[in-house]
């Protein structure tokens, strides 16, 4: 019986080791780095709060935050509207449900690298498919990726295209938890389609809406490969995302202390934003 005592610890040992090396240590080391200057090669140098003061005075840092919120402001509403609409239609009594679902879901499983390279062509100024279609129907070409006012919006639309299939599925799951008897009762009362949707469906799928908002927010703050491939953060830094900026500070300039400070702050910001969203959405219902 005695050997049984340590057996559970043996089972969880790999997890604990992983936790210490890749989660716990990095969090504390990250905090340590925010007070130091380091390029990995030369010795670590204590700089007090210099990284923080530098961060708050760094125009590129504010630009990255501004860009991220701009992305979220376009991405989240688009995501919610399209995912909910597609899910609501798929939830009707229709044929080829499986086909539609599979089609919507395809971009979700494909690498962001593929989606980005593909959309880079679709959004190209001269020979991009979308501009060619615009010209065919007699409109002007749009500088989807070269106009600083539009570029982040284009990326937000692309991200919506990539992810919306997942949220369609999540909303479908949510919609199916609504008891049919609620709708039947509302029909007897003479409720319109819109009224049923507004007063029965929406409140009941509030948890799913919350989840979609949170996941999209985390996704927005994690945006990296899309601007990295498409625009390199340009034009005029209009698509510089938080993670891309961390990456540039760390691996183009080797400012490890400063990039750790950025990472620390962005992580903190994500948790704050998520908490605010949680409070707002949950009391809103």
């Amino acid at each position, binding site marked *: 019986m005695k050997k049984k005592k340590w057996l559970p610890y043996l089972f*969880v040992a790999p997890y604990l080791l992983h936790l210490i090396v890749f989660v716990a240590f990095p969090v504390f080391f*990250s905090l340590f780095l925010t007070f130091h200057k380091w390029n990995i090669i030369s010795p670590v140098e204590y700089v007090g709060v210099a990284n923080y003061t530098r961060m708050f005075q760094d125009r590129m840092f504010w630009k990255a935050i501004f860009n991220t919120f701009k992305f979220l402001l376009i991405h989240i509403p688009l995501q919610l509207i399209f995912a909910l609409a597609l899910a609501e239609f798929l939830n009707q009594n*229709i044929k080829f449900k499986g086909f*539609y679902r599979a089609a919507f879901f395809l971009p979700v499983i494909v690498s962001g690298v593929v989606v980005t390279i593909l959309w880079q062509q679709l959004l190209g100024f001269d020979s991009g498919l979308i501009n060619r279609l615009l010209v065919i129907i007699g409109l002007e070409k749009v500088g989807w990726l070269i106009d600083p006012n539009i570029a982040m919006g284009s990326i937000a639309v692309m991200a919506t295209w990539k992810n919306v299939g997942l949220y369609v599925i999540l909303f479908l799951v949510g919609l199916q938890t609504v008891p049919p008897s609620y709708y039947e009762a509302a029909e007897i009362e003479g409720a319109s389609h819109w009224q049923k949707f507004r007063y029965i469906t929406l409140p009941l799928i509030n948890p799913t809406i919350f989840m979609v908002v949170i996941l999209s927010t985390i996704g927005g*703050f994690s945006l990296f490969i899309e601007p990295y*491939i498409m625009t390199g953060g340009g034009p005029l830094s209009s698509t510089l995302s938080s993670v891309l900026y961390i990456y540039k500070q760390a691996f183009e300039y080797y400012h490890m202390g400063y990039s750790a400070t950025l990472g620390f702050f962005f992580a903190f910001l994500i948790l704050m934003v998520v908490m605010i969203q949680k409070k707002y959405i949950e009391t809103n219902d």
Partner: protein
Amino acid sequence: MKKILIYIFLSLAAITFLYPFYWMIVASLSPESEIGGLLFLPSEFTFASYTQMFSKIPIGRALFNSILVATLTTTGVIAFSSMVGYALALMEFKGRNVIFYIIIFTMTLPFQITLIPNYITMVKLDLVDTYAALVLPFLLNSFAILLFRQAFLGMPRALIDAARVDGCSDLRILFQVLFPNIIPTIVIVGILTFMNSWNEVLWALIVIRDESLMTMPQMVTLFSVGGRAESQLGVKLASAVLLALPIMIAYSFFQKYFIQSMASSGLKE
């Protein structure tokens, strides 16, 4: 009438999602000069973009690396996470609840905070430019642990007790008695892990510089942003197709499982 509108809307949406992929595949098989004007079919099909790509980058090697890394990671995650899940679900020990709450808590931790320190760990352990750097950080996964724990909690107690009476060790109970009964969970964890590993690019860009160790997404990314594609659309698109194809083929066979896996990962919040 309303039904017809719904079908039109859904079909338009389906085209929006499928046509770009169709275009990408056909464009990669078209002569370079026709891609700029391509809508449906080129005047002729050609593998020129693919042969050029193979001569420019070691994409075959990258394919091998990707398969190796994703397979190692997936095997590791299934083995280690199921062990932790088993301990949390079916074993009594001090600290069990603490570990459970740590797992829940660490799931909410944004990766931005650990990115730089983890890179430094890799440098200090001399793991930059090794397969280990691509596999080790992903070998355990909180979400997989919770899925396994949930599956084991749902197992009939009698099954486990009977195996104990027969003198089975815990490892044998886990891998030989319980594993055949939780195939859906294993499939979900397997698909999620394999797909995430296959598509992971940021970490690879950070820890791999040696071309012979690069995985597909990294190779394709650097090919696309670097000068080597010489702004030829065809070769870029060909490399993107090659990166997408394995997952798309797997998706066409296991579509239901893919959707189920991703939905369950979304529902974790």
